[in-house]
């Protein structure tokens, strides 16, 4: 609740394209809204009529199961009608341009389009051309805003606040839209951020964003309040960037021994899917400090909040 007498912020965006363009106040507004939607998940009837009569298109040009499922369940709980289009069923592979596909979606009067695309900027492209609300579900190596929001939500619900925390992101930062969105969000809410990984995947260039870069995981274990382990994306890796699995585990893996050096209340996070034994030890992934499954539950509440706010605005 707002302090007495203080002017209330109101939500005014129809699209969610990235965390970079959001203000700290907007991020907090989204997290507060997610709190309200998390409560809906505890009701006897876990469905509200907020988006009744609206049509949502889950448009996933790049494969994804968990993000698509999360958006789909979020939309169903808001009473929207949902259509799923995946890369294999899409005309894009038959040579249709994104612009033409967009026009088709518009002709169906889709109120919300959730887009996962391999090209950075694809959601922006659609948002500039369509009246529909566009929600970025991951575009290339650019942003994955709802993942960052659910990570921030999970941290806030466990730690009470984000300002002043030391958040460490480990792994393939260069190719990671999750890392990018997390960096923007964490910094805006006042956390200190350190990136860890091989110099090929975590170039010093990132320090321009206001984070610290290190290539030694042992430097950060004792001071971290949160460690967010990113999946090593085999499918995106080219050999020259990557030292090899064994070497990666030895230099950057959160092994059992390294786990012991973390603060007892340090949160272990992972956006999934986990490569057990690579970026994280299997027991640590299932251990008391792990909030990996909470992230999934919170993802649903965060996506309900995003769909409710962006889809509920007059367009």
């Amino acid at each position, binding site marked *: *609740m*707002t302090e*007495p*007498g203080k002017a*209330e*912020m*109101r*939500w*005014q965006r129809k699209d969610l394209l990235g965390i970079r363009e959001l203000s700290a106040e907007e991020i907090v*507004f989204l997290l*507060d*809204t997610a*709190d*309200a*939607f*998390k*409560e*809906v998940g505890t*009701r*006897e*009837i*876990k*469905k*509200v*009529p*907020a*988006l*009744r009569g*609206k049509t949502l298109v889950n448009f996933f040009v790049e494969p994804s199961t968990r993000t698509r499922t999360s958006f789909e369940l979020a939309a169903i709980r*808001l009473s929207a009608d949902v259509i799923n289009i995946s890369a294999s069923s899409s005309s894009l592979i038959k040579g249709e341009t994104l612009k033409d596909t967009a026009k088709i979606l518009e002709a169906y009067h889709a*109120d919300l389009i959730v887009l996962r695309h391999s090209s950075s900027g694809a959601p922006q492209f659609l948002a500039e051309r369509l009246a529909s609300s566009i929600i970025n579900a991951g575009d290339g190596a650019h942003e994955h805003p709802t993942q960052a929001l659910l990570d921030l939500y999970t941290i806030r619900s466990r730690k009470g606040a984000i300002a002043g925390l030391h958040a460490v992101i480990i792994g393939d930062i260069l190719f990671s839209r999750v890392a990018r969105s997390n960096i923007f969000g964490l910094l805006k809410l006042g956390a200190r951020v350190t990136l860890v990984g091989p110099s090929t995947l975590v170039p010093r260039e990132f320090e321009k964003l206001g984070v610290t870069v290190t290539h030694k995981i042992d430097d950060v274990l004792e001071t971290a309040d949160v460690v967010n382990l990113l999946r090593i994306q085999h499918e995106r890796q080219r050999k020259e960037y990557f030292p090899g699995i064994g070497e990666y585990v030895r230099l950057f893996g959160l092994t059992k021994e390294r786990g012991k050096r973390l603060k007892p209340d340090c949160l272990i996070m992972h956006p999934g899917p986990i490569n057990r034994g690579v970026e994280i030890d299997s027991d640590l992934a299932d251990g008391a400090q792990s909030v990996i499954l909470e992230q999934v539950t919170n993802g649903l509440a965060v996506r309900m*909040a995003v769909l*409710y*706010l962006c*889809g*509920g*605005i*007059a*367009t």
Partner: protein
Amino acid sequence: MKPNALSSSQSSLTAPVMDAAAIDRALRRIAHEIIERNPELGSVILAGIPSRGVAVARRLADIIESLGKTRVATGAIDVSMHRDDVGTRAELPRVQASTLPLPLEGKTVIIVDDVFFTGRTVRAAMDAISSFGRPARIQLAALIDRGHRELPIRGDYVGKNLPTAPDEKVRLRLQDVDAEPDAVWLIKEKTA
């Protein structure tokens, strides 16, 4: 649905139609009526609509307790997700989590609103309550009834009937929500 907040400079132009003492009297009358009509106060839940309805519900519980009765359970019921005007507003206010003491089965849930107007907020509140369970009955208490109903809904407990024109606004301030003294104003909407 709700009277819009206006700047305090506008409100200072007119005298309030209810001051703190009048608001307190109206709440006491409602509290007495709730006690009369509900011998089983232990099964009553006062569910306020945020944010001023929640404050009104809490005050009603305080008054009932001060009259030597049991402490009535209170909660909050946010109606944002249950409104019927989705997609028609250019900006959306903050949604708050609803908190009701569960289960609702066998209970009397009294919806508590500050200003009772079209009835659409109350309809949304009834819809929200039913997603938590099936209370024995739902009643409605409002500090002010300003008329202009758009749905077949009536109040069970009304603090003050305030005849208004459709283009007027009811501006309520409560100390515990707004950090301003309790008062109600009737304000002519400026026709620009």
